[in-house]
């Protein structure tokens, strides 16, 4: 009954070393490491882009770049951060931790796993190559439509749009392959005794994520394909001249785009309660309620998309439907918040770096969620929409709710992955610098939006100058403090105090029963869950 020598084809010829190890690996930990490394690199790339943007916005007037280049930077920043930093980070955690958490020897489809990863670097290159080509006078740079590809601007755009479309295709295939793998792993590979309702929350959240991905990524792929044929093959999906409608593109895009928000966030909602329970030394609160809420949010995510473009003009019943259904998301989300806080309530709390990030995450993500609730209101949205208020809002959800969540996960599992403890001192410094400078960057942007500053403009009127100056200075602090993060990770990989198997005093779950770092092939003895 033991599958000691499971599915690991590598075992026969042992694994190759050097570059070939990484190119050909089907080992979930290697692939997880590659995803996480890729994510970190792209996080820095995307961050560098936006610091250039913030530097331009430091003062009114054009100082550093022309509007064309500015437009390219903002769009590629978003695409890089969402598709190449946040999503791969979540997939990296899934690869590393899901098999360990559910007692599986590896992911279910190891070869698919390898392909899934290796689609990412070409995609990232495709996305950013037009910048380099433009330097040599080829083409007019990267996609300049923002990350949303809105037609007809994207039909008018240069070859950067084509590059971005192909890049999105590759990224999409990669995500779909990853998702299939996750679903099969979770459904087929759980160790005996681990029923669905005994699974770690991370597995549940990834199951929802993966289903959302395979249901929506193809729609995005279809939409950008139609865009491609509109651009080059004379179709008129989004062109009124041929009977099309540019707003149709927005419907297709956001049918994917809204679930995408949850695709990025759900995995974090999965491991966050695990972190909270670890450092509260108390069982997770409301397991069943959380599982139901995750599914409810996943389902609602599919039917609220049009709140991203209320200002295009819709009949009143449509506006009302999308407003109320959007507000309804706050209900399951509130259940999650309630459970998270109830998990730390009356716990025996200690504040190591992962816990600091987790607490900061709840607070800041809370701001993102609450401003989202306000944004659902159609009338007020006419003001907020495409203003800096929205920019601030989604950075509270995607940087605080996304990136800071990922950071919590990294600090939580890094000792398990590397076998070394990281520097607590640097970790705490990183947290405080990040949390403070993040707020100083984005709180002014709420006020900028209210005062009437539209987003995606390279230059602005004088009354917006002060807040932009603060925001830029804080953004640079935020950006530079991420170097502490990188340094801390690198030195932790290289060495440091040995980590115990359990790493954290209150850690519960199968991954903590293995040595740190876990052996190349984990669970040669199938664990039994009672």
């Amino acid at each position: 009954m033991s599958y000691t020598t499971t599915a690991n084809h590598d075992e026969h010829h042992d694994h190759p070393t050097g570059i070939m190890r990484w190119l050909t690996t089907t080992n979930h930990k290697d692939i997880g490491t590659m995803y996480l490394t890729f994510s970190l690199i792209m996080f820095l790339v995307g961050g560098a882009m936006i610091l250039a943007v913030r530097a331009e916005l430091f003062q009114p007037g054009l100082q550093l770049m022309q509007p064309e280049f500015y437009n390219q930077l903002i769009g590629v920043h978003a695409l890089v951060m969402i598709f190449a930093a946040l999503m791969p980070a979540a997939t990296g955690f899934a690869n590393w931790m899901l098999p360990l958490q559910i007692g599986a020897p590896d992911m279910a489809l190891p070869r698919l796993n390898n392909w899934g990863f290796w689609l990412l670097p070409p995609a990232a290159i495709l996305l950013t190559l037009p910048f380099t080509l433009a330097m040599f006078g080829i083409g007019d740079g990267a996609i300049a439509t923002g990350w949303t590809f809105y037609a007809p601007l994207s039909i008018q755009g240069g070859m950067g749009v084509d590059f971005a479309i192909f890049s999105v295709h590759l990224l999409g295939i990669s995500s779909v392959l990853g998702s299939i793998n996750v679903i099969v792993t979770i459904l087929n590979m759980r160790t005996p005794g681990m029923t669905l309702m005994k699974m770690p929350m991370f597995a549940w959240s990834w199951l929802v994520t993966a289903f959302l991905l395979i249901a929506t990524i193809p729609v995005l792929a279809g939409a950008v394909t139609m865009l491609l044929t509109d651009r080059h093959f004379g179709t008129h999906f989004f062109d009124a001249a041929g009977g099309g409608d540019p707003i149709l593109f927005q419907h297709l895009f956001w049918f994917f785009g809204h679930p995408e928000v949850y695709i990025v966030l759900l995995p974090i909602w999965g491991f966050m309660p695990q972190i909270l329970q670890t450092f509260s030394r108390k069982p997770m609160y409301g397991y069943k309620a959380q599982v139901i809420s995750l599914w409810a949010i996943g389902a609602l995510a599919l039917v609220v998309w049009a709140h991203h473009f209320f200002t295009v003009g819709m009949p009143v019943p449509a506006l009302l439907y999308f407003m109320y259904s959007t507000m309804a998301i706050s209900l399951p989300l509130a259940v999650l918040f309630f459970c998270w806080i109830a998990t730390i309530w009356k716990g025996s709390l200690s504040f190591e770096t992962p816990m600091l990030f987790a607490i900061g995450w709840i607070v800041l993500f809370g701001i993102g969620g609450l401003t989202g609730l306000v944004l659902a209101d159609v009338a007020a949205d006419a003001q907020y929409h495409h203003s800096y208020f929205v920019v601030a809002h989604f950075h509270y959800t995607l940087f605080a709710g996304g990136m800071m969540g990922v950071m919590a996960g990294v600090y939580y599992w890094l000792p398990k992955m590397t076998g070394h403890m990281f520097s607590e001192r640097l970790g705490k410094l990183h947290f405080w610098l990040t949390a403070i400078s993040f707020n100083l960057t984005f709180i002014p942007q709420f006020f900028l939006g209210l005062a009437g500053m539209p987003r995606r403009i390279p230059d602005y009127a004088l009354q917006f100058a002060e807040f932009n100056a603060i925001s830029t200075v804080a953004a640079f602090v935020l950006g530079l403090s991420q170097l502490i993060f990188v340094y801390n990770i690198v030195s932790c990989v290289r060495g440091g105090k040995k980590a115990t198997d359990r790493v954290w005093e209150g850690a519960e779950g199968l991954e903590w029963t293995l040595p740190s770092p876990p052996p190349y092939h984990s669970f040669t003895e199938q664990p039994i869950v009672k």
Partner: protein
Amino acid sequence: MVMHFLKKAVLGVMMTMISLVAHAEYTWNFPMPATPMAADTLHVHNKFMVIVMIIFVVVLAIMIYSIVNHRKSKGYKAATFSGPSTKSQVLWTLVPFAILMYIDFILMGIPAYHSIVMMEDTKTNADMVIKVTGSQWRWQYEYLDGEAQGIKFVSNLTTPQDQIDNQADKGKDYLLEVDNHLVVPVGKKVRVLLTATDVIHNWWVPAFGSARDAIPGFLRETWVRVDVPGTYRGQCKELCGKGHGFMPIVVDAVSAEDYTKWVADQKTKLAAASAGADKTWTKEDLVAHGKEVYVKNCAVCHQANGQGLPPTFPALTGSKIAQGPIFDAGGKLLKDSHLDRVFNGKGVMPAWKGVLNDTDIAAVVTYERNALGNSVGDVLQPAQVKALR
């Protein structure tokens, strides 16, 4: 470079502190509402903000209480509950849920419903209709009915390029100033129709509380009733290409008498322009007038020196089109000629026939052919343009 930036940064922060106090009245919230819709939006926004802040503070307080008191370092022993166990506990956990439902669908949902109905009520009792057309990167306005019927014009950014490039001091209304203001009478409900000729734009004046997309090939509408006389400024807020940050909106709300006077003025100007189209102009006059038109309307893309920004915006200097013949042997407008391009547009080039008068078009074409490094030597008379109408 780095030091320079740091110096600027420190200076910026200091200036900020000073001026934040100075601007306090409008910095922290929506601008003073000028329309019923904006007043309603501000009211709804304030109410919702208070609600979510209360939620935030209450939840934060609970967390802080827990963080302060339930510490391991204080020797606090962890409880072991993992969910509500008794019936009353289950009921208690439902209380916040019920409160939130009440907030969502009653406290916030009902005022939001009324706001939407109000916002979308473009249909009833409109006093006048204005059509707004967005194009890269300017707004065009046309009065469709009432006393101003037939008045139409284009509204261009007037901020000089050297201010944008930091070569000159920035004016008070930097980036929010245009040559032709949209003028509306105070207290009249104006139905605003929106469309576009190239990509999606969004007509947004924050003090009006309304923002609506202008979509090429489609018609959308919103409404404004400006109750307070004054000048209101706004911007396009849908990314529309390189000039997205440079297509502002300026609206003057004036009294009924001033409006009538403005309309009369415009009509006189139109009549004068139309009369001007019938006379024969000298080349010098046309070139001089054409330069003004060029700087206002064309220089954004083709640049003041005519060099353009290839490949999207071709150079006019030495251009085949700008130096080729305009009319065929029979005196008909040559397809893809200089005037055809200006008059009818193509691709990214807008069609100017709708917004510039005959004299302006004749003048700017003549200017482009005899300046900017071109010297074709011919003259296009306004009457020749008029004949195309």
